[in-house]
């Protein structure tokens, strides 16, 4: 079951959902709009490797924003710290974003229960597109769970800025 907007509001007030800062204006009938933060990260190399750390560089957005180009991946972040120890968040773009051909996440819309931090956004534009810091770019929904809860303790916990992939650590575990 998915939470309605008023229920999200109630659970923020009860402390069962973290959305910080929280503004009721950003509530939808069954989701909450998050905003694009002011920092982006891009990979320095064109060709990436899952087994090795891929170096990034940081782009600080000014008021005029940035034009995103196809065939390039941009990691962004939400302004808000978001998460829950009671519900599972699922993120997606707003339909206003999708109508512009912008992906806000790639393949992984599901957030682990217990993760609390700024979400890393995987920005990918189908056609060139300007985005602005602070714009309402996506939405988060909250879902009830079935079963005993074991909270997330993973490597991205508490992120405050775009977090590049740490999948290379998996390979080190095995070696």
């Amino acid at each position, binding site marked *: 079951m998915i939470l309605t907007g008023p229920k999200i509001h109630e659970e923020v007030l009860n402390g069962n959902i973290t959305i910080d800062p929280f503004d009721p204006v950003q509530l939808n009938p069954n989701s909450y709009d998050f905003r694009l933060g002011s920092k982006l990260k891009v990979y320095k190399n064109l*060709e990436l490797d899952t087994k090795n750390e891929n170096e990034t560089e940081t782009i600080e957005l000014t008021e005029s924003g940035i034009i995103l180009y196809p065939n390039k991946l941009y990691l962004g972040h939400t302004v808000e710290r978001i998460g829950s120890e009671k519900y599972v968040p699922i993120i997606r773009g707003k339909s206003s974003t999708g109508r512009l051909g912008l992906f806000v996440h790639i393949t992984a819309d599901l957030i682990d229960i217990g993760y609390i931090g700024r979400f890393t956004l995987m920005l990918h534009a189908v056609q060139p597109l300007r985005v602005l810091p602070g714009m309402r770019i996506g939405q988060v929904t909250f879902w009830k769970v079935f*079963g005993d809860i074991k909270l997330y303790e993973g490597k991205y916990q508490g992120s405050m800025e775009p977090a590049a992939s740490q999948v290379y650590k998996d390979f080190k575990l095995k070696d």
Partner: protein
Amino acid sequence: MILTGTKITEEVLNGSICLDPFEVSLVNPNSYNYRLGEELIEITYDVDDMKALPTQNKLTIPDDGYVLQPNKLYLGVTYETIGSTKYVPSLIGRSSLGRLGLFLQITADLGHIGTCHKWTLELTVVQPLRVYPRMRIGQVSFWVTEGLELLNGHEYKKEVNSYAKYSEPTHSQMEKLLG
């Protein structure tokens, strides 16, 4: 409702969820990590004839990896057999791979109740990316249904347009839906 990792483990042990091979270390708080099978198909469909067999370049991902190129579609397969007779599976990639611009499925994350096989993955990348066989690449979650009893053994019409009998990367059979 979505199953927690604890519940997924319980239901694997009860036989209501099929994850084979199953490793406790691959259980997440609300999903299970699947691995990338070795078989990969570089695929091109015939734009003029939807009923024609696509051109398929079949390859085995070597141990030192294979670089996926943008603007191309690859069909891969999960290393694990995945399914459930009781819950609806939803299969996506891990955020660690999304952070590298890798799609594991295209638009259809939803599985059918009652199927149990190795799932075909639809891989495409934003930037060139090297992937390796058997790496932990995606995640599958399981969802509680309403009306399960109404299925009454008709979980999935296995004889009609079924991908469930395949455990290798399998191209689209859209032609069967064209009538």
